[in-house]
Every structure is written in C-alpha cells, then in structure tokens.
C-alpha cells in the first residue's frame, strides 16, 4: 500500500476512482431500498396511467398514436427532472447532515465525493427509464419507429445528462437548506415541464414563452427523444417542421460547457464554507422544525 512517490494528479485520480466506487455503492444500496423502489414504481404508474387514459386522443398525424408522441416527451422531461432535482436534494441534504464535511476532512475527499455523486445520479436514470420503457413496449404498439433510434436515445441521454446535472448541483449548492429545494428547484422545473412541449406542442403557447422554453435543456431533451422514437413524418408537428438535430446538440452542448466551467467554482466555494458548527446549526434547526 505504501506509495509515497504519488503525485497530486495520481492522488486525484485515486480519489476519483474511490468516488466512483462510492457512487456505485450508493446506487446498489438505493435500488435495494424499498423507499427508492416505491419511488420508481410511483413514477412508472403515474406515467403509464396518463398514457393509457389518453390513448385515444387524436395526434393529427395519421397512424400515430398519442402514447408514441407523449412517451418520448415524458422520458425527456423525467431525465431532466431526475438529474436536476436528484442532485439538488442530495447536495442540500448532505451539506446539512455532514456527509460533505466528512469528505472535506479527508485528503482529496471532495474530489471523490463529487465524482461519486455524479455517477450515482447518472446511474439512477437506469431503473427510472427501465420501469417506464419496458411496460410501455408491452402496452402500446409502435413505440419505437425504427431501431436506429436507440442510438439517438443514447446520445440525447448523455448530452442531456451533461447539460442538466450541473444545474442540479448548482441549485443544491446555492439553496439555503433542504426545505428550500422545493421553492428553488422543484417549482422552476415544474414550470419548465409545463412549457416545454411535454404534454402539448410548444407552438400552442405565446411566442415569448416558446423562447423561454427553448433556452433550457428540457425542451431539447424532449425534442431529441421524439426524434429518436417517432417516424420522420412526425417532425411536421415540431417548430420549423424539423427535428433540428444540430440545434439540439448546440443547445445541450452549450449548457454542458457552461456547467463544466461554472459548477466546480460554485462547489468549491460552497465546500469551503462547510464547518462543524454549520452542521450543528442545521441539526438544531431540524429539531425545531419537527417540533
């Protein structure tokens, strides 16, 4: 084990590996926990229930079922929602309960902590998508128009993850406490979901709302998913009657680049403020709150 010749870079890589192991362990523990299993089941039942109830709605494109259009949009929104709200809650919570401080107290611990957090949040999408996709294929016909779409699903997922995960991390780092995640995280995401063409085409909204929706990753993740699942004829329902693949890559890529630059700065600043007395104060505040 003796390795006194290690360089700062090799130590950071070592910490990153430990962090990834941590993320994997958190993921395994999560899918084994009944609490998280219920959560996945709940989102699946809600989504499938919605699709089933509205299965006869006219889509405007002959031969295209409502579920086929709504499912990819909802998937895009769920991914965006999951990787924003997930890390926002996790970070706000682990700031309060001392998990983050513990990592601050060990060498290279923060590198490991954040690597683990990112892997864990990304992996959490797997069961989320699984519980919705598998029953959808059994319940509805022609969900995936052409098998090549799976490749599109993959890159939209990866790019969407890189674009949205930093947003969640930054929200989690900036909110004053766990109870404020609803206000600063949930609420904006809900509003975005409402205007991002998930439940009805975005063109039905006012022009400026369309502009706002297209500034954020959620709309583009929904669009990217629709381009993956639907036949090309369905592009007629979209803005400029196109899947706008290039624009999708540019917008999501832009968010990813900004996120990669801004997030480490925000996280470093936040971690520097972590102290034992802060954790103690949060603990006392919670006790008060429960009373």
């Amino acid at each position, binding site marked *: 084990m003796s390795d*006194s010749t*290690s360089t700062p870079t090799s130590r950071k890589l070592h910490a990153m590996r430990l962090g990834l*192991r941590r993320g994997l362990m958190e993921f395994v523990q999560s899918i084994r926990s009944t609490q998280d299993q219920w959560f996945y089941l709940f989102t699946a039942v809600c989504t499938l229930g919605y699709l089933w109830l509205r299965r006869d709605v006219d889509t405007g494109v002959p031969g295209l079922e409502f579920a086929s259009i709504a499912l990819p949009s909802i998937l895009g929104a769920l991914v965006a929602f999951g990787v924003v709200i997930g890390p926002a809650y996790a970070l706000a919570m682990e700031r309060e309960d001392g998990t983050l401080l513990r990592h601050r107290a*060990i*060498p*290279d611990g923060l590198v490991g902590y954040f690597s683990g957090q990112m892997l864990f949040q990304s992996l959490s999408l797997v069961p989320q998508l699984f519980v919705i996709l598998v029953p959808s294929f059994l319940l509805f016909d022609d969900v995936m128009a052409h098998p090549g779409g799976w490749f599109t699903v993959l890159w939209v997922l990866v790019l969407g993850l890189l674009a949205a995960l930093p947003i969640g991390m930054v929200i989690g780092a900036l909110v004053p406490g766990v109870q404020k995640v609803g206000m600063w995280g949930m609420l904006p995401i809900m509003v975005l979901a409402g205007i991002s063409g998930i439940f009805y085409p975005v063109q039905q909204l006012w022009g400026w709302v369309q502009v706002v929706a297209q500034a954020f990753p959620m709309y583009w993740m929904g669009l990217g998913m629709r381009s993956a699942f639907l036949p090309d004829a369905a592009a007629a329902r979209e803005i400029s009657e196109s899947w706008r693949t290039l624009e999708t890559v540019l917008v999501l890529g832009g968010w990813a680049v900004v996120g990669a630059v801004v997030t480490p700065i925000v996280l470093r600043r936040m971690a520097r403020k972590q102290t034992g007395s802060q954790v103690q104060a949060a603990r006392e505040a919670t006790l008060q709150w429960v009373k």
Partner: protein
Amino acid sequence: MVKVRDLRMRYGENDVLTGVDFDIHPGEVLCLLGPNGAGKTTTIEVLEGFRIRSAGEVTVLGEDPATAGEAWRARTGVVLQSWRDHPRWTPRRLLTQLGGYYAPYSTPEQERPWDIAELLDIVGLNEMADRKIGTLSGGQRRRLDVAMGIIGRPELLFLDEPTAGFDPQARRDFHHLVHRLADLESTTVLLTTHDLDEAEKLADRVVILAGGRIVADDSAEGLALRVSGEAEVKWTRGGERFVHATADATRFVRELFAQYGEDVHDLEVRRASLEDAYLSLVQQHESGSAETAAVAFAEVTK
C-alpha cells in the same frame, strides 16, 4: 506541533476571539475548556482549516491551516459529530471507503490507513460492523465517528465536544480510547469540552477560554494548586460568627485554638477548589458578563 499567536476572530460587529495564544507539543493531550459560547469551537475550526481567521498567526504541523494542502490534511484527523449521514452504509464498508483516501499518503514511518478490522476492534464496533449505520445507537454512532476521525492514523487529532450526549459508560470507554491513542499511538490530541471533570481526566494540559481569550494555561494539577492558594476559615465564638481568609489555614487554626481553646465552635475550613472557581466562571459567563468572568478567573489562577 501547534502554535497560535494573537488569534482573533470577528463576526460582523461581534468579537469572538480577542487574541488567543497557546502551543501544543508533540504527544500532548490538550484540552480547551470553557463555557458555551467562549469561542472553543471557533478556535478548533480555525486550527482544522475549516474557518478563516480574522487576524493572528496559526501554525499547525508546520503549515498555515488556511492554505495547507491535501498532504497536510492527511496528517490530521477530525472527529465530527455525525447525525444521520450514510444511513444505508455499514461501518465496515464506510470505513473501507473513507480509509482508501489515505493510502496514497502512506509512508514507511506512518502506514495509512488503519487496518479496518483492527480499528473496528479498538472502537468496539466489531459486532455492529455489518449492520446498517441507520440502525446504530447514539453511542455506537459516536464510536464510529471516532473511527472515521482516526482512520488515517493522524499525527494530530481534533475532537470538538466529543462526549456531548454520552451516557457514563460510553464516556468512560471514550476516555479510555483517547488515553490509548495518546499513549500507544503517540497521537497529539486537541479536544474541547465545557466539562471540567473531563478535562481533568483526559488532559496533560488545560487551556481555559473565556470572554474570547485565554484565562489559564496549565496542567490540571497546576491549576488546582494555583486556585487553592487561599482558604476560608469559619467559626463561632460566644454565639458570634467569624470568617477569615488565609493562605495557611493549618497554622491559623492552630493559633485560633491556642488563643481560644474550647470557646471555638462550628469550625469549618474550606479550600477554594478549581471546581468552585470554574463554576463561578461559567455562571458569570452565562449571565452575560463574559468579560468580568474572565478577569475574575484569571485573577484567581494568577
């Protein structure tokens, strides 16, 4: 090992530390004692590198904790009060994971991290090693906190109010553990407490903090000797009560008897103890007159 000179801390308009000086020598167990709100936690957080001081000089293990890097971090250990973190992990898994970070900092002289099985044994968590942390009792969690603090075999260990909320047995076990670390592993320990009894049991040296400054710095025995300079003699004679303060109570009483013999009744000799002095310090501190309390205590232990 640790050198603190004129450490000052100010939050807005509020001066928490107004010039603190002390040293910690290698292998020493130093106890920072003081009433709640005296600035103990602030001091230890500055030394841990978690809080940036307003002014003064601080050197810990040869470096300024405000700018020290990860290699410095690997040589220190911090025992944090856990609360509800990592409930789904088991002690063994968590210690293995956290201990891993120290491996690159292992040297032939100081092998890092601690062997997990040995560590679990030392803190007495063998039987709970594979249970979920969420199911541990308060005392067991605190022992896990200690294990996490020392997993990297630190040269200097920080403990902030380590036994708060302990039952008497857990407290004794904990004291035993600190002695073991100090004696066998020659770990230098800085701990804070507001409990004089704990300071006397654990510390090689006690530094008393009140009103944002240090009012006494000595071994527990030394402090006790300083305070007990004066004793109070009370007696009655012919129905009247007398009180006299003296440095040499034995001689005074001998003379008293020589002079009045059988007329002396209800004799009472009371040596001012460290406990009395400390209790009155705490009382005054908590009633809001921190400055007066500090001055009065410094006077008694001069």
